[in-house]
């Protein structure tokens, strides 16, 4: 299998990472060599195997739905690159 430039651009779009043509070419090379390596899994027949979805074979514990952190609004926006009082600021989305 080969991943072409068009697919690279599509994955980049889904990943929300901007890629130049030059970077896409480099990524295509890297990803193709990595997928060549991954394809080894196709040697195995796995139709009847149940996938492992959780490594810790315990049931998740239930807990009461209680508010544990109060008045942390300031802490939440503290590290924001751009804020306005209690709000995160983003580039304008509605004209």
């Amino acid at each position, binding site marked *: 299998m080969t*991943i072409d430039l068009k*697919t*690279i651009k599509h*994955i*980049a779009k*889904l*990943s*929300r*990472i*901007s*890629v130049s043509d030059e970077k896409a070419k480099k*990524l295509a090379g*890297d*990803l193709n*060599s*990595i*997928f060549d*390596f*991954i*394809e*080894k*899994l*196709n040697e*195995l027949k*796995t139709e009847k*195997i*149940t*996938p*492992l*979805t*959780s*490594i*810790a074979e*315990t049931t*998740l*514990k239930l*807990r009461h739905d209680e508010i544990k952190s109060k008045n*942390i609004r300031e*802490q*939440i926006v*503290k*590290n*924001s*690159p*751009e804020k306005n009082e209690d709000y*995160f600021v*983003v*580039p*304008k*989305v509605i004209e």
Partner: protein
Amino acid sequence: MSDITKQTLSDLVKNIKAKKLSSEEVTKDFIQRSEKSNKLNAYITEDFSNALQKAKKFDQKPDFNLKLPGIPIAVKDLFCTKDVMTTAGSKILNNFIPTYESTVTQNIWNEGGILLGKLNCDEFAMGSSNETSYFGNVQNPINENLVPGGSSGGSASAVCAQLTPITIGTDTGGSIRQPASFTGTVGLKPTYGSCSRYGIVAFASSLDQAGPMAQNVKDCALLQEIISTYDTKDSTSIDFKRSQYSQDLNKNIKGKKIGIPKEYRVDGMPKEIEDLWQKGIDYVKDCGAEIINISLPHTKYALPTYYIVAPAEASSNLARYDGVKYGFRAKGENLIDMYEKTRSEGFGAEVQRRIMIGTYVLSSGYYDAYYLKAQKVRKLIKNDFDEAYKKVDAILTPSTPSSAFKIGEKKDDPVSMYLNDIFTVPVNLAGLPGISIPAGHDSKGYPLGLQIIGKAFDEQNILNIAYAMEDKINFKNKISDWWIK
């Protein structure tokens, strides 16, 4: 008292408790040595003046019942530390100051530990050489031209160079054990669910585990005893009865059954590694353990499985870095453009590669072929271990297929870099504990490690085996302080 930084953790604790040393004296010495060791680039953030203040405060009102009474400790920069910058080795978190503390670090401070600073690591713990860090590569104290391994490269380098008596790292595919092996130090990756993941910058959530790194097995056991706690803030934290690992540590491994998996004899493995493994086998036999040949037939599929599962989880975990809530933001013409530029400029090449792989294997039409397939093979790998543990108590393997390699040697070849983790990745996939201990040197004088893999929750057993072997091996690290002018 001279040579404070050369002392083991156990000796420092003893000397502080006996009032032969003050926390201030100890902290000062580690700070001074760290300051002289800038060339190693082990630190991303130093917190020295705060550390000294905390040490003085401890000395004014010492509590000698604590397990780490006034002991200064630097930690991997993947653990969130309240009010101290936490970068995960990435530009995208270059200005991030957590408003909360990770459970694992909190456990250390609760026992009297004092934060010295934050240690360098591969970006988001993605790497095996510490070369993907935005803050530059770290040098291996063993030799100027060598990588310290990764992703916990700064941690391994700092313990090896005695800039901190002990440290903590994280291990997703070998990130504690491989750098421990490359620097002649001890590193334990605990059972999945043993140490809380709360407050650790996430890479691959079903594989990530925090663990101790130290100069010897006893110190490693003590730190594990402190950091391993059940935590309701991490829904995958497991509530099991934890041993008092350092108190219960003993060298009696007579009658233990140790498995030797034939599949770990990989093609192209240097003879030195093979010989080291044989030496390890002889050591455990000398201790009265029984050697049993076993098979882990799906070993060769572990790395391909890992390189689907880990990037898939990473691509989801790293979706949160959008330039809105925290971290770096690039200017964009509109919202989407801002996201794309932020992530393109904020993440390094390896992280972008893994996000792309993860996005691809989870994307519509490919999910079954890759992600589901990998989860099925992961089950087969876990079944291999379950079968083996019907016959043996622990498994002995080399930690890595080679000793530390040169800086830059594998940087441009992702697959050859990934092959470093061939012996460590299966352990993460199966959620098991594994410890790497220094076991000898190669012909160049670089350290080599052996790995002991245990049953789930059986840390005490592998620590005991490591403790018994350590005694026989009598390993001495060759450090010349070349980096100090």
